[in-house]
C-alpha cells in the first residue's frame, strides 16, 4: 500500500530502473534525432519571420523563446554526444519536441498570421509571450506575491500537519479528541473558509496563508498519523531490546517509517495548495497571479490570462520538481526497493 503510493509520486530517474546493458545510439540515428528535435522549432521561427502577419503584435519574446529552445536543445545534443545513456534519453523526447514546434507553427499561423481564430479569446503564441516582455515588472511582482503566499502557507501547513500527525499517531488521548475533528474539518475544501478568512484576518495575505495552510494541513496530518500507525511491531521491539526509550521509538522508529506516507500527503497537499492559492488570490487579494488573471479578465485581455497560466504552469512544475528532489533525497533508502 505504502509502497504503491510512493511509486506513483516518486521521481523515476533513469538510474532507478536498474542498469540494463549500456545503450548505444548510432551516430547517424542520433544526428537524425537531433535534427528532428530542432526542426519543429526552426520551422516555427521561420514562419514567424517570413509569413506576414495580420494582427499587430510584438513578436520579439516569441522569437527569442523559440531561439532559446533551439539553442538549449542544440546544446544538450552536443553535450550528450559522448554519453550513450544521455544520447538515448535525449532521443526519447525528439518526436515530442518536433510536435511541439509544429503545434506552435500552426497556432501562430491560425492566429497572428491568418487571423482565423476568434479574438480576443484565442490570441497567438507571440501575443501571449509578448506580455512577458511588455509587463515583465508587473508580472514579476505578482509572481513574487504568489510565491510568498505559497511559501508561507504551504510550509506552515506541512509543519503543522506533521506536528498534528505525530501527536495523533503517538498519543492515544490526542487521537481520541483530535482525530475526529481532523476528519470532519479536513474534508471541507479550504476555499469554503474564504469568507471567514477575509473577515477575521487583518489583511488578505495572512488570510491567504491561513487558507493554503489549512488545505495542506489535513492530508499531511492524516498521512503522518497513518504512516506512524503502520510501523511494524518488530521495529519497536528491536528498538526496545536495544535500549530505546519512548523518544527514540517516536523519532527514530515511527517517524522515519512514516516518511514515505508523509510525502504522499505532501504531494496531495501540494495540488490542493495550488488550487487554494489561486482561488484565494482571485477572491480579494491585492496581488498574485490569481489576482493578475482577474485583473486581466476585467480588461478582456485574455492573452494576459494565458501568459499568467503559462507562468503558473512553469512555476508549479518547478515547485513539484523541488519537492520530488527533496523526497528522493530523504527516501534514498527506498531506491531499488520501490520502482
Amino acid at each position, binding site marked *: 500500500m505504502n509502497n504503491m503510493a510512493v511509486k506513483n509520486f516518486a521521481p523515476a530517474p533513469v538510474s532507478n530502473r536498474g542498469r540494463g546493458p549500456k545503450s548505444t545510439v548510432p551516430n547517424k540515428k542520433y544526428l537524425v534525432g537531433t535534427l528532428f528535435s530542432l526542426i519543429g522549432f526552426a520551422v516555427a521561427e521561420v514562419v514567424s519571420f517570413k509569413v506576414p502577419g495580420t494582427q499587430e503584435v510584438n513578436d520579439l519574446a516569441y522569437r527569442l523563446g523559440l531561439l532559446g529552445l533551439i539553442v538549449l536543445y542544440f546544446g544538450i545534443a552536443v553535450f550528450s554526444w559522448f554519453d550513450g545513456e544521455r544520447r538515448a534519453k535525449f532521443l526519447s523526447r525528439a518526436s515530442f519536441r518536433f510536435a511541439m514546434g509544429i503545434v506552435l507553427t500552426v497556432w501562430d499561423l491560425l492566429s497572428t498570421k491568418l487571423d482565423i481564430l476568434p479574438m480576443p479569446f484565442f490570441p497567438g503564441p507571440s501575443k501571449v509571450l509578448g506580455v512577458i516582455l511588455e509587463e515583465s515588472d508587473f508580472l514579476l511582482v505578482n509572481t513574487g506575491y504568489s510565491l510568498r503566499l505559497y511559501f508561507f502557507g504551504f510550509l506552515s501547513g506541512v509543519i503543522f500537519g506533521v506536528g498534528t500527525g505525530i501527536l495523533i499517531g503517538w498519543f492515544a488521548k490526542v487521537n481520541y479528541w483530535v482525530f475526529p475533528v481532523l476528519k470532519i474539518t479536513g474534508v471541507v475544501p479550504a476555499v469554503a473558509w474564504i469568507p471567514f478568512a477575509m473577515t477575521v484576518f487583518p489583511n488578505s495575505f495572512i488570510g491567504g496563508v491561513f487558507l493554503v495552510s489549512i488545505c495542506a494541513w489535513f492530508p499531511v496530518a492524516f498521512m503522518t498519523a497513518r504512516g506512524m500507525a503502520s510501523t511494524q511491531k*518488530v521495529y519497536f521491539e528491536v*528498538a526496545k*531490546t536495544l535500549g530505546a526509550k519512548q523518544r527514540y521509538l517516536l523519532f*527514530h522508529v515511527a517517524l522515519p517509517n512514516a516518511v514515505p506516507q508523509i510525502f504522499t500527503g505532501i504531494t496531495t497537499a501540494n495540488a490542493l495548495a495550488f488550487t487554494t492559492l489561486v482561488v484565494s488570490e482571485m477572491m480579494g487579494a491585492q496581488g498574485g497571479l490569481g489576482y493578475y488573471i482577474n485583473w486581466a479578465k476585467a480588461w478582456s485581455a485574455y492573452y494576459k490570462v494565458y501568459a499568467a497560466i503559462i507562468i503558473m504552469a512553469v512555476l508549479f512544475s518547478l515547485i513539484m520538481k523541488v519537492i520530488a528532489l527533496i523526497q528522493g533525497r530523504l527516501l534514498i533508502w527506498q531506491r531499488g526497493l520501490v520502482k
Partner: protein
Amino acid sequence: MSQENLLEIVSVDRTYVDTDDNTVEALRDINLTVRKGEFLTIIGPSGCGKTTLLRLIAGLDRPEAGEILLAGEKITAPDPQRGYVFQQGSLFPWLTVEKNIAAGLKARGVYQENKADVAQFIELIGLHGFAKSYPHQISGGMAQRVAIARTLINRPVALLLDEPMGALDTFSRADLQDKLLELWENDGTTMVLVTHDVDEAIYLSDRIVIMTPRPGKISEILDVHLPRPRQRGDAEFMALRKNLLEKFHLASSMPQPEYAI
C-alpha cells in the same frame, strides 16, 4: 566453563488467546537454568512455546505465573543487557548497515563515546565495504550478521537468538553458524538460541532443551559432549542427530534397510 547460573526460569506459565478465541497454553510450568557463558539451544516443533519463552526472557512479554531472574534480578522489561536477534527482516530499512549497527548506541545515548565500535563491529562480521549499504541491498545472511552485530555492540551478558538462520539457505546458514561460534568463543557471551533445526542445535550447543507442544513444556535437557570444533558429518554427530530425531518421532528406531526397491 563456569557453572555459575546466569538466568533462572522458575515455574513460568503463559497462555494466550488465539484467533479462534481458544485459550492456548503456550508454556506450562517451565523451570530452566542457563549457566553463564554456555551455548544453550531450545528446540521443538512449532507451537511448543520456544519463541514465547525467549520473548519472556527478553522482557518483551510477561509470564502469567512464575518469574525469570537474570543474575538474581527479576526481569520486567526489555534491556540491552539481554540482546535479542529476531528472525529475518528486523533491520531498520531506512538506516544503512553502519547506522543500524550504531542504533543501539544511539538508543542508549552513548554513541559519541563509543563511535569507534561501529567500524570495529562491521569488520568483525566481515561486512567491510557494506557500511553505507541499505538493508535491501544486502543478502539475507549479511542482514542477519548485521542484526547480530547491532545487538552485540551493546555488550549484552546474554544473547537471545530467535531462529536467526531460519530463513537462510544451507550455505549462508553454515557460514553464520561458524561466525556465531567465533563470536561466542571470543566474548563468552551466554547464548540462548531457539531453532527447529536439529543439526544446528547439535553443531552449536553445550546443552539442548527439548520442548513439546500442547501445552508447551520442557521434555528433556540433553548435554552435548562432542568436542569442538565439531564436524557436521562425523559418526558421533550423526548418532546424536538420530537420537534427537527419534525423540521427535521423525526417525524410525528400527534399523533402516540398506536399500529399498
